[in-house]
């Protein structure tokens, strides 16, 4: 029982990331009709917004303290980050909270990237075959990740969560299990809550605003909405930018869990696509549900007890589920018929 609960929790945060990426992917599918293979790269760019923000904050001033000397007799150099030097305690506070604070940087940056991508590239591919869309966004994904690699190098750059939430909670003891059995890092809880808030925000936006209504109508029947004289193209840009921000934020907050490197986007992309397919192309609730479902399944499959029965299952579970779903329920869990068939 305790093991199952632990795995459930472990699956949730990964599921949250899948759900957020898949949500954006589905939004883009549903409204723009575009298969965006560069969506993982947006997730990765978000993560590197956090890295950049942290780097900016950690730029240092060098002062010398003439009263102290090093062992070699030269004056002691003291390196302090600028923000601490100028802003004092508030500066240290900022450094401590650099990951959540980089959301402030990520939102405008991702909006801009989304806007430029849609206007500059995606727009021209609405009428092209899906194969072309896949190929051009695949190319873009390579370009983006190589640029990041050229700037930040190939190694993962660990980011730390704020001190307050750095430890782990002994959740098990709350539920009456022995202490130390179910330990869950605070940050993962934060991530889970964050994912929930973002998902809720996106759904609320689509549900309660006029803009969202048009987008939903567009997802249901694009031609008719076009006939109503609504300029759907202009809204496409906004939808794409929103999807980019969602993916970016998912990336920002994931950095303390997984140190970002340039190819993290590709790794997540493949899985997110599987998530979208399992959820059903063009279904937003499907994307979210499938995201969490697959995250949890993956976490269960990596239990030793399961691996003992089915060796290697943890490596393939997600793909296996995708294959089975596609064959027995071709439109995914929540999908409508005939979406993206040709």
């Amino acid at each position: 029982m305790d093991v199952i609960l632990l795995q459930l929790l472990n699956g949730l945060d990964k599921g949250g990331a899948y759900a957020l990426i898949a949500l954006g992917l589905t939004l883009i599918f549903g409204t723009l009709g575009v298969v965006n293979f560069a969506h993982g790269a947006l997730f990765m760019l978000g993560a590197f917004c956090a890295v950049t923000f942290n780097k900016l904050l950690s730029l240092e001033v060098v002062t010398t303290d003439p009263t102290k000397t090093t062992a070699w007799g030269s004056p002691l150099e003291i390196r302090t980050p600028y923000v601490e030097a100028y802003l004092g305690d508030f500066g240290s506070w900022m450094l401590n909270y650099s990951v959540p604070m980089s959301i402030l940087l990520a939102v405008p940056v991702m909006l801009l990237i989304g806007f430029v991508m849609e206007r500059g590239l995606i727009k021209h591919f609405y009428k092209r075959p899906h194969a072309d869309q896949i190929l051009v966004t695949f190319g873009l994904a390579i370009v983006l990740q190589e640029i990041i690699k050229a700037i930040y190098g190939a190694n993962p750059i660990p980011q730390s969560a704020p001190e307050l939430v750095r430890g782990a909670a002994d959740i098990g003891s709350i539920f009456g299990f022995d202490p130390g059995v179910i330990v869950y890092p605070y940050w993962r809880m934060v991530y889970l809550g964050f994912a929930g808030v973002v998902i809720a925000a996106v759904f609320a936006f689509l549900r309660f605003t006029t803009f969202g209504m048009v987008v939903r109508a567009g997802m249901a029947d694009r031609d008719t909405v076009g006939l109503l004289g609504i300029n759907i193209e202009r809204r496409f840009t906004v939808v794409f930018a929103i999807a980019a921000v969602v993916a970016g934020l998912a990336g920002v907050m994931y950095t303390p869990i997984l140190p970002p490197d340039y190819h993290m986007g590709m790794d997540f992309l493949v899985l997110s696509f599987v998530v979208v397919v399992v959820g059903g192309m063009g279904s937003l609730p499907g994307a979210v549900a499938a995201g969490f479902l697959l995250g949890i399944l993956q976490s269960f499959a990596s239990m030793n007890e399961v691996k003992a029965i089915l060796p290697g299952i943890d490596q393939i579970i997600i793909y296996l589920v995708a294959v089975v779903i596609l064959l027995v329920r071709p439109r995914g869990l929540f999908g409508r018929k005939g979406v993206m068939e040709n």
Partner: protein
Amino acid sequence: MTTKTSPMRDMIFFFVFAVAVLTMPVWLAPIGAGYPDLLQKFAIYGLFATGFNLLFGLTGYLSFGHAAFLGVGSYSAVWAFKLLGMNPLPAAIMAVITSGLFALAIGYISLRRSGIYFSILTLAFAQMSYNLAYSVLTPITNGETGLRVLRSDPRLFDSSSAVDGPLIANLFGIEMTGYAGFYFCAVVLLIAFFIAQRIFRSPFGIMLRAVKTNQNRMNYTGLNPRPYTLAAFVISGMYAGLAGALLCITDPLAGAERMQWTASGEVVLMTILGGAGTLLGPIFGAALIKYFENIFSAFNEQTLHEIFGFLPDFLEGPVVSVTGLFVGEGWHLTLGVLFMLIVIFLPGGLMEGFSRIGRLFKRSSGKSGPGSATAPAE
């Protein structure tokens, strides 16, 4: 041109192609590509892309998991070496058979769906194979280290002299390295190209193109598209397996990274770059990518400074650092940019570019005909 095919024209075309391939060491030498390791790669990846094109170019089914067959071919070849001996022929045959069977199984399932779902299914299968090759299948694949031939392997049919000889594939005494290796690959490529040419011209080939254009009409014409696509998928998988075997024949080591989806992406790229659906395009694309990979990734800051040395200093610095992004480690950036440019501006690949230029010349010399409405050139 498709409509004006004739056996004669195809014979001449094949002959010219064969001569061009076999003389590559000579005419590629001036551009620095005339050495066997690179030439082997041209032939092997040309073969891989030709096979991929039989599926994607003709039927329009975009497989994102073709590297799995390359990997299966490689592993089978090394196992053939280990069990039967270092002769490349059984290795190649075994690779073709296993990858064909593998493709039959994956294709049978994946082809139940079309469009992007098919792409995702093939991708899922390839990722599964890759992950399994790294983990539980280690007894067969030797995991991260990669599978290689050991002295202790049985190698049943190797003669006593070969048993003590170097662990390199050899065809009746000729070691498959250097130019001998290249010529072996080249001959295999030529055979495969000949078959591909025949498929393009055959009733089967035209049925595959019918699959791409209108499956609905095909059904109402009394044709069952499924076995056609499955046959194309299996043939294409066999080509990939054969290419995988050749990789091991020239260097008897098989690793799981060959099956990764980036490798699948690479073959898509080669085919698109050269021109999907054309005979020559994919081979051309494969050679071009392997050539530039070789040239560009060898560049470093030093060579760039030499190249741009003629520039005034204040220009040289920035120019070198910008171009530096695209070469050496950054070669993939060039690849990505190139890929995007091709898809955006030249969806038919370089072959379409050539035929556009060709038409331009024809028009300027006043011989323009109704050619623009006929089938795309090959």
